[in-house]
């Protein structure tokens, strides 16, 4: 049987080549059967559960856009009150649902130390409603609400770092993942599943070929380049200790990543902007590598 099919049926309405669908197959397989998923509105809800059908074969609740982490907190507490300490509860949502609109609920669950797994599949925009800019949209990307024009070349703010925000709440385990590195992704989900007694957050890069104007066949190419250019860092923070899981020997030029994606095409040839992004990436890596090397306990910052 193919990956994840025991938990997640085909026939869903994701666009051909959807990266979020690849992410879900691996996530659901790694979570296994003893799980309850509370999922916010977004592409991976709309495409998987056209009533009266569902792709899910594990218990799954559709909540609204804002409250996945609150519902998951309640479900987990109810299970515990009934003496069930084994079933894991996952709050799942996109970048719009978890980094922006449901962020208050995510922050609250992290702060209360809820015993849940929080999963963010990040398409770097509100994909389901036509690619509006979100806190997860990277610098320079053109979206329907940050369109590249003559004066302003796409989004002018940096990506909101939900993983580090979770660390600063004192989360038990925080990790970033990417479907091109599927074994690392599955291992992190399994680790989050095994750990107990506090919130675990996984932030997953989820390429959206339709919204990003990428050839559907290039979904995984793009995902891999995100890591090889240094733009997407694979790391985990366990009890405050940072570990970078993959270090490219040399960063590929950001242009290699941009030229496969329509959302960045206005930046091709803009050496100034590309240099600004590359130097931002370099400084980020230098800082993170320093934290890792010196074994700084990030929990001591709070």
């Amino acid at each position, binding site marked *: 049987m*193919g990956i994840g*099919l025991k938990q997640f049926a085909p026939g869903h309405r994701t666009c051909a080549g959807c990266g979020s669908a*690849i992410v879900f197959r691996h996530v659901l397989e790694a979570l296994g059967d003893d799980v309850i998923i509370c999922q916010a509105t977004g592409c991976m809800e709309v495409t*998987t559960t056209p009533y009266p059908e*569902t*792709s*899910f*074969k594990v218990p799954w609740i559709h909540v609204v856009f804002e409250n996945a982490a609150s519902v998951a907190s309640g479900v987990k507490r109810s299970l515990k009150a009934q003496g069930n300490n084994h079933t894991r509860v996952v709050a799942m949502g996109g970048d719009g649902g978890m980094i922006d609109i449901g962020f208050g609920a995510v922050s609250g669950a992290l702060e209360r130390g809820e015993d849940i797994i929080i999963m963010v599949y990040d398409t770097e925009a509100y994909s389901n409603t036509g690619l509006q800019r979100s806190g997860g949209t990277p610098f320079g990307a053109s979206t329907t609400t940050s369109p590249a024009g003559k004066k302003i070349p796409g989004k002018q703010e940096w990506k909101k770092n939900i993983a580090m925000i979770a660390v600063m709440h004192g989360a038990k385990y925080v990790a970033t993942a990417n479907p091109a590195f599927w074994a690392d992704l599955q291992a992190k989900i399994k680790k989050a599943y095994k750990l107990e007694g506090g919130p675990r957050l996984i932030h997953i890069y989820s390429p959206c070929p339709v919204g990003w104007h990428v050839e559907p*066949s290039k979904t*995984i190419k793009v995902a891999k380049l995100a890591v090889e250019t240094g733009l997407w860092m694979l790391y985990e923070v366990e009890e405050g200790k940072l570990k970078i899981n993959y270090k490219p020997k040399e960063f590929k030029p950001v242009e290699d990543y941009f030229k496969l994606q329509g959302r960045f095409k206005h930046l091709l040839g803009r050496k100034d902007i590309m240099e600004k992004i590359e130097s931002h990436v370099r400084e980020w890596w230098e800082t993170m590598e320093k934290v890792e090397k010196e074994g700084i306990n990030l929990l001591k910052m709070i």
Partner: protein
Amino acid sequence: MSKTKQRKDLPGGIITDIGSTARNKTGSWRTFKPVVNLEKCTGCGICEKFCPEGCITIQKVEGYDKPKCTINYDYCKGCLICMEECPFKVISSVVEEK
């Protein structure tokens, strides 16, 4: 395929027929069809890891000793990620005939 049925005695909004999107055969969406050269397929399984639909299985195919890549065309949407990612370049595409 799911073995459960949609129950009629529950309030609206509850789906008991798990995995029921499987009745929606997304293979009809396809413009390009991936075709595997079974002679050359090594069975490495890389294509299987990246198929968004989960319609690739590495399994025994008649006439071959080693397991091979097989595609379930009922669900394959023709994205061609498998063709792009196959390290041995043994998948090609043809225009779907309907």
